[in-house]
């Protein structure tokens, strides 16, 4: 604890200047001595309470409503002066001029001193402002953490569901390729056999026609090929349905669930940035602590005696220390608040933020996996086969009935398959899936980017 006794010592020194008993009559000396004692006693009472008030001023800065408490304390300090030192002549009927100078003059100087203390209420106001500022920072820090946790949790759930769909897409692609490839292979073998048989059959048919005068029956393999094309077409039908289902799920996530979350989180970021602007630390210093320091400095600079000045310096240094500490703590809290939330709420769209709420990285893995499934190439090969296999049959010598049969059943069936596969190539091939997802993902990312 600091001591604030310079002013008291100063007044005490004045009290010691009372003339001794050798001056004047015995009655005058007695009265003077009595007055001196009364003034000294009053000063002692003031001394006892003055330091208590000064200590309270320092302590008040830690209290709630420091400005109000400061005002009360300033008023009580002044009352204490008036009730102690200022009331030194309570029992003195006719004070001496020296006594009047010491008590009245001294009290007036102290009164002026308290005027500057009253004006330094802004120190209390600054501490109140800092307390509110810190409280709001704490509340906002907690709020942003809660919001981030909640957003991350919901985002994780959505991204988990997106991952599930992605895994299903890979599986559906692989499964479809596997099943279609088997059937294509089988179909191709059947086609070659059919072409071979067809050549032989045409020779036989020509012989039969010459000998028996009738047409030879069309090779039965064609039915197997047509059946296979239907099976492959069915595979693609199921595949398309499966893929559409997954794409619909993606759409739900990208345009609704995930999009809503990002729109909401963008709102939270905007709110946080507004808070950041409104609570800029420099406003605290400009509006509160700087005026408080000025008012505290005025206590020292306005002091009317060296004793008051000395006490004021001791008091003000304690008060400034409190304000410095509180201001520094507020700045640290502010800096931490900004730092902690920079990448999540205040700064540009960061990789951390992307990973937590958007998950662009995982989509690269997905693209890679899907792209490695060369459905596109396979489809192109199969479509080529389908459009060439039946044309390899030399129809020059073919009976007209055969030609008609070939066109109506096999070629039409193969063409339909080729068209189906072409549609798959355009809409649900690996490339098409990657394009679909990447376009939707870009739209999604646009929801949160500034």
């Amino acid at each position: 604890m600091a001591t604030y006794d310079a002013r008291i010592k100063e007044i005490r020194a004045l009290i010691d200047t009372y003339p001794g008993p050798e001056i004047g009559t015995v009655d005058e000396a007695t009265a003077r001595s009595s007055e001196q004692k009364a003034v000294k006693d009053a000063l002692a009472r003031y001394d006892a309470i003055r330091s208590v008030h000064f200590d309270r001023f320092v302590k008040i800065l830690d209290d709630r409503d420091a400005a109000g408490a400061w005002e009360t304390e300033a008023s009580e300090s002044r009352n204490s002066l008036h009730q102690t030192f200022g009331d030194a002549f309570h029992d003195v009927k006719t004070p001496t001029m020296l006594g009047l100078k010491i008590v009245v003059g001294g009290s007036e100087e102290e009164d002026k001193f308290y005027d500057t203390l009253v004006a330094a209420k802004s120190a209390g106001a600054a501490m109140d402002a800092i307390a509110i500022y810190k409280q709001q920072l704490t509340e906002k820090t907690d709020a942003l953490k809660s919001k981030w946790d909640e957003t991350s949790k919901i985002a994780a759930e959505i991204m988990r569901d997106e991952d599930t769909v992605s895994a299903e897409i890979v599986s559906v692609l692989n499964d479809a390729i596997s099943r279609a490839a088997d059937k294509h292979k089988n179909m191709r073998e059947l086609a070659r056999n059919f072409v071979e048989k067809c050549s032989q059959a045409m020779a036989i048919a020509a012989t039969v026609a010459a000998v028996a005068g009738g047409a030879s029956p069309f090779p039965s393999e064609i039915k197997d090929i047509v059946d296979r094309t239907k099976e492959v077409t069915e595979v693609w039908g199921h595949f398309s349905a499966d893929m559409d289902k997954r794409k619909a799920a993606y759409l739900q996530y990208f345009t609704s669930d995930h999009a809503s979350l990002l729109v909401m989180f963008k709102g939270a970021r905007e709110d946080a940035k507004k808070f950041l602007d409104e609570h800029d630390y420099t406003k605290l210093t400009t509006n509160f602590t700087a005026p408080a320091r000025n008012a505290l400095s005025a206590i020292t600079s306005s002091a009317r005696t060296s004793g008051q000045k000395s006490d004021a310096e001791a008091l003000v240094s304690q008060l400034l220390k409190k304000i410095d500490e509180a201001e520094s703590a507020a700045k640290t809290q502010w800096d931490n608040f900004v730092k902690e939330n920079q990448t999540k709420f205040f700064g540009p769209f960061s990789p951390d933020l992307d990973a937590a709420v958007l998950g662009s990285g995982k989509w690269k893995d997905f693209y890679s996996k899907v792209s490695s499934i060369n459905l596109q190439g396979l489809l192109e090969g199969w479509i080529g086969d389908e459009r060439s296999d039946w044309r390899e049959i030399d129809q020059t010598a073919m009976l007209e009935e055969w030609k008609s049969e070939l066109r109506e059943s096999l070629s039409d069936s193969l063409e339909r398959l080729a068209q189906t596969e072409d549609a798959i190539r355009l809409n649900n091939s690996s490339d098409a899936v990657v394009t679909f997802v990447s376009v939707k993902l870009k739209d999604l990312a646009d929801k949160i980017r500034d």
Partner: protein
Amino acid sequence: MPEKLLDSLHTGLVTSEELDAKPYGFRVTWIKWDSGFRGSDLQITDRIIGIDGILYDATNRKDHDQAPGGYAEDQYWEKKGARDGQSTTLTIWRDGEALQIAGLVRADRSYTNDAGRRAIAPAGPEALTNDGFDNAWMGWLEKFEDRASRIFDGGWQHTLNIRQELADALEEGPRIDFLLKKYPGPFATVTKSDYDRLIDSLRGKKYALTPADLAYRSLTQHRVDDAIAAGQQARASFLSKNSAAPLDSLPAVDPIRGDRQSVAGQVVEIASVQEIAEAGHGWYYAQGAQGAVYLIDSRSPAMTAVYLAVERFKQLVSPEVNDVHQFIGKVTTTPTMVAAGRRVYTGLVIEVLADTVDGKVFVDLTTGGAEPLFANEEKMHPPPVVNTSAKQSPEQVMTSFINALKLGDQDLWSSFFATWSCSRNDDGNCIYDLNGGPDPGSHSMDYVHARRMIMSDVYDIRVAKVGPLRSLLDKPKIEGVTIELDHIGLFDGEYHAYRNAELHRMWRLQRVDNGPWRITSDQGI
């Protein structure tokens, strides 16, 4: 009991020098019980401007300590060769007039009782005994005189809680009774008389208010009733027109992953809301079916319009409106997240379409642009029965001002404030500013407070005193006057003047070039 006359003589007055007063003098703040001026016409607050025909001079203050009540007063009487019981005449200044008041100067006395102990008066009590009370008689007397002096010396003009002072003073009743019974004599009689005067003063002037005086209160109640009825009708019509459903009848929808379209656009009636706040940003939270969260932003333009309407209601109808809302709103597809305390509220935002505040103020936000009217607002302008004549005296202006308050007409009430300013600078000169009055609307908060008071604790306000007319400036000619108001409260079935920190007793009025008197005090009631 022995009474010893001392050498020193005094008038027995306590005074305070009034350096800036014109004429210069010493204000009487107390007349001691044994003063030679007890029983004279001298009053506390009188200003002593001279003694025995000689006036005091502020420019020649060397003898001011020897004036009545000064610490060296006895030296004056010694110099004059005065004796105990000698007559003296004070020249005093009261209400702008000089009066002569005669009294006696008396020798100081010292009293002792039969046991040789110091007493306060010839018949006792002993100075340092307490007779079972909290403190000794000497200390008690000092405090009693201090309190009485404070009240008689303009206590009503200062910010005092008169009723608390009265309660404190009444606690001294038993001690006064004890004094009279055990120590009968002049001291007890005078002290009892002072005490009775103190109690009378603190009780405040008694008023007899008639039903006509209080009619304004029922006028307000009728206006509130009218607003409530109009609000209820408008609300029912609004609910019906918009096919509003109770909020909890909507299916619970996850605000992020649910089917928001299934509830979007639905107009809902919200029975109750809870106020929550995220670092100072307020929201209203309503719970739907199965814990579904719905949120209303207190900073939305719609809510700003509601708050503005409520403020106008307070000004036009009644200041008593609690912050209790019954919203009607449209469910949006916008999800939002509010973190308040330890809880995160994630829900859909509700756009407020209408609101009933405290069951009194209904605001339809779908009409009236940015500042829609509350129900019945267009009928809330009171009849102009307040005298607005430019020729009114200061007292009449104050009465009209009070009547405007009673009627609840803020514009009319505000019109009694000055539009100019004329305040003294450090040199004591008046600085006139033609447009220096308060900004229009700057008294809105004062008005709301004043309305609250006139509709609750304050039953009437009367002009208690009109001060002398003072000239403040020659060109333009500005005159000023101070008026004291009695605020009348109801205490134990009686109407009495009272005051506390919420009420302003002192009011300043000015007029420019003989124009209308207007209020220059920046206060409401």
